């Protein structure tokens, strides 16, 4: 199966190992992986802050680039950015042509863990990681894309990993894009409830499907001098 990687600007610039891990895992699962270097961002920062014209402009460019691809699927290591691509039609309410193009690209775009489970039907990618870990449900993956069991099934098949649930796995980490800097105090107050549960769980690592949440959680853990590390699911699945 041919896969076009939508890497997201965040992973591209701030967490490249998530991208390289994605490539490795997808190849190991039998995919041919392509990466179109013209891609930049999906437009979510502008869309979520209320700048629809700017978001539309960037979304159109995204659609043009990815609809030209002959790949069977567009795969992204982010539930949030994948959800944004699925939201594209909201930007083209009065433009039937673009609406159709947006829908068509959206229907081919998958978040990493759901692509492995739902499309490739792969549950075990042969990863090994020794230690106790937990999972944080990133909001947009969970609530916009309905991704819940997929990452858990993949994690349970990682050899050596002891998976524990925290009681607030589904609660927001407080990131919320520009929310995290518009209302930093609230953002961190929300985050601290998450951190509390993570610390109580006695884990060595927190795994999630979105680099943005991991930046938020990891940024606080490291500020507090905690030894708990944050890891993207792709990194975990690429660990051998």
């Amino acid at each position, binding site marked *: 199966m041919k896969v076009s990687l939508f890497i997201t600007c965040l992973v591209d610039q701030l967490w*490249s190992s998530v991208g390289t891990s994605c*490539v490795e895992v997808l190849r190991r699962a039998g995919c041919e992986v392509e*990466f179109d*270097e013209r891609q930049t961002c999906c437009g979510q920062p502008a869309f979520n802050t209320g700048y629809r014209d700017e978001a539309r402009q*960037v979304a159109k460019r995204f659609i043009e680039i990815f609809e030209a691809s002959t790949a069977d699927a567009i795969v992204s290591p982010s539930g949030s950015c994948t959800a944004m691509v699925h939201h594209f039609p909201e930007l083209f309410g009065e433009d039937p042509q673009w609406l159709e193009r947006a829908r068509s690209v959206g229907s081919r775009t998958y978040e990493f863990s759901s692509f492995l489970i739902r499309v490739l039907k792969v549950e075990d990618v042969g990863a090994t990681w020794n230690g106790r870990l937990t999972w944080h449900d990133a*909001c947009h993956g969970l609530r916009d894309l309905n991704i819940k069991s997929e990452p858990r099934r993949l994690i349970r098949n990682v050899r050596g990993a002891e998976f524990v649930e925290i009681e607030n796995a589904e609660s927001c980490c407080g990131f*919320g894009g520009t929310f995290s800097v518009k*209302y*930093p105090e*609230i953002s961190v107050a929300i985050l601290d409830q998450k951190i509390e549960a993570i610390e109580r769980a006695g884990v060595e690592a927190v795994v999630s499907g979105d680099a943005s949440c991991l930046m938020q959680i990891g940024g606080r853990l490291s500020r507090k001098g905690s030894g708990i590390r944050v890891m993207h699911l792709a990194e975990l699945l690429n660990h051998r």
Partner: protein
Amino acid sequence: MTRMSTETFSENAKAALRDAQLRGALRHATTLFGRKRREAAASVSNWEELRNEARAIKDEVLSQLDRYLETFVTNAEKRGAKIHWARDAAEANDIICQLTLAHGARNVVKSKSMTTEEIHLNTALERAGMQVVETDLGEYIIQLAGEIPSHIIAPAIHKTKRQIAELFTTELGMPPTDDVNALTSTARATLRQRFAAADIGISGVNFGIAETGTIVIVENEGNIRLTTSLPRTHIAVMGIEKLLPRFADLDIFFKLLPRSAAGQALSTYQSFITGTKRNASDEGPDELHILLLDNGRSRMLAHPVTRQSLACIRCGACLNACPVYQQVGGHAYGSVYPGPIGSVITPQLIGIQKAAQLPYASSLCGACREVCPVKIDIPRLLLHLRSEISRTQRSGRARERLAFKFWAFAMMRPWVYETTARVGRGFQRWFKSPLKAWTNARDLRPIEAESFREQWRRTR
């Protein structure tokens, strides 16, 4: 206590975050409400189906609201109710004050009603010389404290038992105690006297049934029963969106509302009021006045995106589920309607200029949408309002606007995107102060020495 404003949300929130007592009370209450709601919803096998049906009924009403209002009014009048229409809060308050004055009333008892809070009816009535008493325990507590509700269904959710005991000692002269039963029986005894002396009872409305002209009110304390049956005159204040087409529709809403609100299978009291008493010898008020309030609702109705704001049945579930509300509580929003649905409704009621901070007071996590019994897509509405704000509010947003102009310029051109990132990579060590909002409490992940695309080029 000074009343907080929607325009100072950021400061209000910071103050709330420093209030350990408030946060303790909030954490306890929202966790409890959340858990009870989850369990109550899980006890109904077709919960999702019910949500869809409820929303479909609300959509049906909202798509032909004029027709349903006419039917409701005709049927209510047939049974002896007197109908009043109010375009806005001022008109509503005028009508109600004139009614009370015309009846020579002095004492007014009120049952819990968000709509009357919305129009600040108590202030207007007191100005007209009325003695107004809130008879819902939570509302009574905040009335004594001179505050506004901090939650749609639990107005005093922000107060601890100790704070309430202290309030009762200073306001009602009761000896200090932390015995909840002693506190409630003192309130009960005081309120019973007020009921007996009341000339007029004012209530809200949960549902208006178009086919029968019935108003339906749900509650747990019995004070609404008393408010609507003891005084000679009953005034019901009702938002025009509260209609349901058929009596049978209540079946669905009675399953959804109490479960979503308080995790109850059914509220303790359901009152159905259809017109006035049939015979002079019957018990109950002589007069029933129903005031239909617009106050910005027809404006919400007119827009295809904002229309769904009117489907809200005021259960408060989105407040309990919201991570922001859980941290800062209701007062920080500076509005009668707090939390996610408040951030949607308030800007539409008082104007987005005055409440421009509220639509951004959300991480867009979607927990509100997940629990909403009528499936209002609150995040989508918040995004719509944000776009309205950035489109219409120019002042104070010049920097943000410019930033997104440049952002779009860069994202449209991979070479600008990459060059900007490279420059950022080289200079990020000196680029500290603009990032303070992040770095005050969190470490910032630096831009990588080699981006993913650079590695891709190098290795494929």
